């Protein structure tokens, strides 16, 4: 298995890129762990970069293994109010609302 590159192969990944995807993923990363994380992710990406060598011209991407189509559901109300059951397992609720720290637009 040889990793052939046509432009996207990455032997290393910038720490700033890790920080960017950590922000998008909303996962806090400490400065101590970022180095090793970058190294591991770079290894994974390097392995993944084998894909770049494949000729996929005119190949339709496959999102579903059976290439099936969507069934439609009749427009009927089938769910009743289960708020108590759902909110019994919620971290913070008041007056039927889920609470989060104040959001400022």
């Amino acid at each position: 298995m040889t990793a052939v590159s046509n432009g996207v192969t990455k032997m290393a990944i910038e720490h700033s890129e890790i920080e960017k995807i950590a922000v998008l993923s909303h996962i806090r990363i400490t400065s101590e762990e970022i180095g090793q994380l970058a190294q591991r992710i770079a290894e994974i990406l390097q392995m993944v970069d084998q894909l770049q060598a494949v000729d996929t011209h005119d190949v339709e991407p496959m999102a579903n293994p059976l290439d099936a189509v969507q069934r439609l559901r009749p427009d009927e109300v089938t769910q009743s109010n289960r708020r108590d059951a759902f909110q019994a397992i919620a971290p913070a609720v008041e007056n039927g609302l889920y609470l989060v720290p104040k959001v400022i637009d």
Partner: protein
Amino acid sequence: MQWETVIGLEVHLQLATQSKIFSGSATTFGAEPNTQASAVDLAMPGMLPVLNAQAVHHAIKFGIGIGAQISKHSVFDRKNYFYPDLPKGYQISQFETPIIGKGSFEILMEDGSSRTIGITRAHLEEDAGKSLHEDFINYTGIDLNRAGTPLLEIVSEPDIRSAAEAVAYLKALHSLVTYLGISDGNMAEGSMRCDVNISLRPSGSTLLGTRTEIKNVNSFRFVEKAIHHEFQRQAEILEEGGTITQETRLYDADLDETRSMRSKEVANDYRYFPEPDLLPVVVDDAYIESIRKSLPELPDGKRTRFMTQYGLGPYDANVLSGSKPLADYFEAVAEQCGDAKIASNWVQVELLGQLNRVGSSIEECPVSAIALGSLIRRILDNTISGKMAKQVFESMWAGEGDADEIIEAHGLLQVSDTGAIEAIVDDVLSANAAQVQQYLNADEAKRKKLVGFFVGQVMKLSKGQANPQVVNELLAKKLTHNEAE
């Protein structure tokens, strides 16, 4: 410098369905918080979406209504971002292959001119929940009842050139979707919400300037005000040689201003990709055709028909076809009275005037179309005068009964009996001998005025009940007679 405004609108239309787009929860407005949020809507682990057939049906109906391309194969995508009112951390939407492609429709301005506005696309997606910032001091409360309500996002081309056109577009769109029955169009309840993309360019230029997107503009009036405000703001910056920052701005109706939403500035990367929990939506010609056949007459068609069938002018036809209940009302009045032009006049002037004054809609009108048509018939058959009819209409509005009952009860019956009117005419002419003399010596213009005076006197003496036509005929006869002597 003269600036041209370039506007494109994104309208989020809540579709009228019983249940949500991907779950069996109810969509009723105004329920207690989170009582209409099922495990699917709450993004409980393991929960999966299943597409509501009615949402697809409504979207295709809209596509046919604007003559758009209907995608026979459309795909749902995930739009990934974190927000507390977005439980899954992604919104199920359509990115690369929306269900509705390019279309267009015509808007008519008040001056009678018309413009065609292009529709770029319309796609299905789910609504988010609501964040309630006011109820708590340190917290925001999240109500997910709205999460999963089906939306059709309708994106226009940047074809709109003024606030007035934007409003006309929205009104025409509102009219179309309520005609189609795909949305209740209730703007106060958020059924139709609008984002405005706006940029300026020197008049005559064909390049597009940097645009801003104004979110949260949820009434026709606010759209107009927000556009005016944003035009001023951008014009001032450009006049001073500045540049416009591409950004999202929020319209604050209380302060009548737009302000930058810095929280949305954090480089958004929505990472769209095909939603693996849903499969491609495939519709065939037969299905599209069956919807096409079920389509009601739409505003455009109705407007044209009103012009050809009833001989109405474009403005009148546009007003009367503006909403289906109004159009139906007008047609029922016209049929009952047999004269569409008078019906058009009465509906627009008396009826809509009165409805506006009391702030009611046509659906709440206390005077039925049949009743109004019957009243107009009494004008046409000379039972009452037009002036009397207005009085009768007021009584009908007050619930005093139908036209004939009121005419009877108030003794408003028009007198057409020649003998009775002749006696009054004679009285008037002998009591005003000086004016009769003046008439005999006057030129045409002056005579006309004096006839008006005599008519007025006769009407006064007859308490308005004399048939004006008969009065005119008799006066003419008598005055000619006097002249001959």
